[in-house]
């Protein structure tokens, strides 16, 4: 079973890297990019076979390590 975790900065937290990417895109002639937010995708291969249990486990991983919930939010997809 595979899990995919998306970690993004929370809304309202300034993202200097995303802002730099936005500015670079503008310099390159891609007009109309109003905002860029940069995050992370983390893929996990799990031995688990039960979807609900796997999702609960990965959420616990997010809370304890994969995301810093002071500044970041996350979503979990199980496939």
């Amino acid at each position, binding site marked *: 079973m595979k899990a995919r975790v998306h970690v993004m900065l929370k809304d309202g937290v300034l993202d*200097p*890297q995303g802002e*730099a990417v936005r500015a670079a895109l503008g310099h390159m002639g891609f007009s109309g990019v109003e905002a860029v937010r940069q995050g992370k995708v983390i893929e996990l291969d799990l031995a688990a076979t039960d979807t609900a249990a796997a999702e609960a486990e990965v959420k616990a991983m997010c809370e304890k*390590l994969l995301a*810093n919930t002071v500044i970041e939010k996350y979503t979990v997809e199980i496939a």
Partner: protein
Amino acid sequence: MKAAVITFPGSNCDRDLFDAFAKAGDEVVKVWHKETELPAGIDVIGIPGGFSFGDYLRCGAIASRSPIGQAVVDFAQRGGYVLGVCNGFQVLTEMGLLPGALMRNAGLKFISKPVALTVTTTDSAFTSGYGPGQEIVIPIAHAEGNYQIDAEGLKQLRGEDRVAFRYVENPNGATDDIAGVLSANRRVLGMMPHPERVVEPAQGGTDGAALFRALSSVMALA
């Protein structure tokens, strides 16, 4: 006083921190991150600067969950003194021992230079050797020193006089010019500037020495 300095893979200020404690007259021991217990009789833990675990995932995140990490958290929760400098500050926020988070500098660049700080509170074992509002010069060297905390958290820090140091000129975008913060019991200090890099004239400054001396003398009285 007996100090322990933790070394993680990628720590690079552990020797400087060791020497700064030793110069203040402390007995110092080095502790490797794979240890699960601290040596007996430790009064203060130093978490050094550097790039623990290559700054993978988030700065300080992996170090904060390393085997010695839980021992550090337990020590702090029992009322032990902990000083985290630079990457050590990042580790302390990741451990949840200090509020807020350290994000990429607003200008995106790594900044390495001496900066002027004001001592915002002298009400702690770390800062009692300075005068109220005293201006000191201590070097910074970081890419992720932009201290962020929500409005509620900031209100609490200010209300409880827990901002230890502020930048005179904000180099990194930090909220409220914050360079260092104290825990609620005032025994855990995290700061981005490196006091251990200015403890003797040969280093180009001595403004950091008072921090280690004050800590050592408070311990001697305890």
